């Protein structure tokens, strides 16, 4: 099983030569993804072998030497060899069944293994899917320790994490290939996804279930930190937003609170408390804007705020009629929201 997997891994790697290493789905970052990847290679090895054998058999049947046509009726053709053909076909069907049994059992074993991975001491993170962004809430530690952010999940390395997945509108699907499988977010029910991450790093994913106009731009990022770094991140995120420093940023805060922004967004520590769009309290600490459609740079942020519909047509963030001073001041303000 192992050798076969390695062999087919090598074959597939050849296919991918020229690309930047293995595809994300086959580059596991934790035990769950590792088990899935192992099963994937095992299945791939077996299936590749089966396919090759079938094609070889097909080729052999076409190319085999045939006796000259004896002029007999086609109805009698090959009747002499039919018995041996019956034996071969029966044996092949039996072999197929055995292979399938083996594959089914290995799928069950992996499934059971995945279920056992779930640690007892887990950190639960609530993920709510919205058209077209991800709401992320940490509420394990009671009201004082509750944290809301968006489109970016931070977890400590080596700690069991359980996502509880809900949807606020339509069905979405949570998928970060390198941490393992996906799970749908279905309105009216709560689904769960368990995983642990081994290596610190940044893992990208995006919504996998068609959810409307901006299904293509519903990205999310998972950041795995060492434990202490995570704690630092967490406590800094718990703080309310910084007060604006400098005249421009202060003007920006005023503009933020008097224009459309305030209708939907929350900035903790200010009167802005909209609940229908991402929490912006620490937006400048995040790595992307517009559900990771654009990188977090001043230019990208400006493009997004000035004309969201050009970046994500159909998204629910409207274009606001800001003049350039307002826009610049709002940018200055948001950039301070680390």
């Amino acid at each position, binding site marked *: 099983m192992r050798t076969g997997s390695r062999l087919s891994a090598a074959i597939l790697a050849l296919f991918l030569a020229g690309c930047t290493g293995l595809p994300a789905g086959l580059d596991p970052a934790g035990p769950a993804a590792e088990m899935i990847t192992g099963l994937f290679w095992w299945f791939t090895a077996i299936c590749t072998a089966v396919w090759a054998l079938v094609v070889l058999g097909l080729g052999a049947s076409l190319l085999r030497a045939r006796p000259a046509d004896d002029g007999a009726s086609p109805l009698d053709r090959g009747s002499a060899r039919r018995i041996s053909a019956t034996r071969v076909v029966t044996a092949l069907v039996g072999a197929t069944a055995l292979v399938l049994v083996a594959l089914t059992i290995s799928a069950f074993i992996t499934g059971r293994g995945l279920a056992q991975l779930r640690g007892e001491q887990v950190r639960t993170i609530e993920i709510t899917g919205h058209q077209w962004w991800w709401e992320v809430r940490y509420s394990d530690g009671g009201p004082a320790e509750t944290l809301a952010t968006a489109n970016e999940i931070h977890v400590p390395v080596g700690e069991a994490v359980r996502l509880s997945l809900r949807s606020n509108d339509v069905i979405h699907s949570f998928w970060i290939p390198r941490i393992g499988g996906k799970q749908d977010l279905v309105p009216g029910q709560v689904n769960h996804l368990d995983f642990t991450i081994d290596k610190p790093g940044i893992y990208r994913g995006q919504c996998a279930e068609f959810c409307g106009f901006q299904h293509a731009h519903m990205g999310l990022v998972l950041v795995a930190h060492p434990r202490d770094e995570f704690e630092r991140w967490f406590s800094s995120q718990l703080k309310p937003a910084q007060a604006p420093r400098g005249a421009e940023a202060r003007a920006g805060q005023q503009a933020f609170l008097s224009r459309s922004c305030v209708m939907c967004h929350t900035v903790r520590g200010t009167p802005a408390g909209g609940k229908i769009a991402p929490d912006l309290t620490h937006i400048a600490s995040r790595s992307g804007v517009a559900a990771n459609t654009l990188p977090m740079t001043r230019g990208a942020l400006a493009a997004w705020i000035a004309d969201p*519909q050009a970046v994500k047509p159909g998204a629910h963030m409207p274009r606001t009629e800001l003049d350039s001073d307002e826009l610049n001041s709002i940018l200055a303000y948001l950039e301070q929201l680390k």
Partner: protein
Amino acid sequence: MCSPCHKVAGLVLLLAIAGCEREEREFQSPPPQSGDAGAAVLSTLSPGSSAPQATPSPTGRKYNQNAYHISEGKRWFRWFNCNGCHANGGGGSGPALMDEKWIYGGSIEHIAATIRQGRPNGMPSFDGKIPEQQIWQLAAYVRSMSGNAPKPARPSRNDALNPGPAEQQRDPLPTVGGAAQGPR
């Protein structure tokens, strides 16, 4: 060809055009044209039938006919907590929106103006807070609450607790009071 054929062909064409107008998903409104919104913006702040007649504007017509705009309006209505005062259109501290009475005019231009400018006795002004396109979408939705939008364009029920029949199921009510009827 016979004249009934022409009529049928004309009807089909009309249906088709109505279909196009109804189904367009216009994410980005073109910059507002002068005179479009202007006529209604200047309507009076006082209730009564003395309100100036709003000229039916192409903008109003466009929003009024379009299923996507109306459904977006329904979304803003919920998100911006219009329900707080106009509970599901049935009224509370603010007036009911699903009946035929319009204090400040029932045309889409009037409703847009009401949202934009606010009205005495509690209706705040959302000018600058709600962008122009969203105001029109809200206004189109508010009209659809009393059935004043083409039936196929009116929203159906939400995936939520539903207090009563959806906008699509309501019978159109005439607009009474305020200014005369806006474009249908």
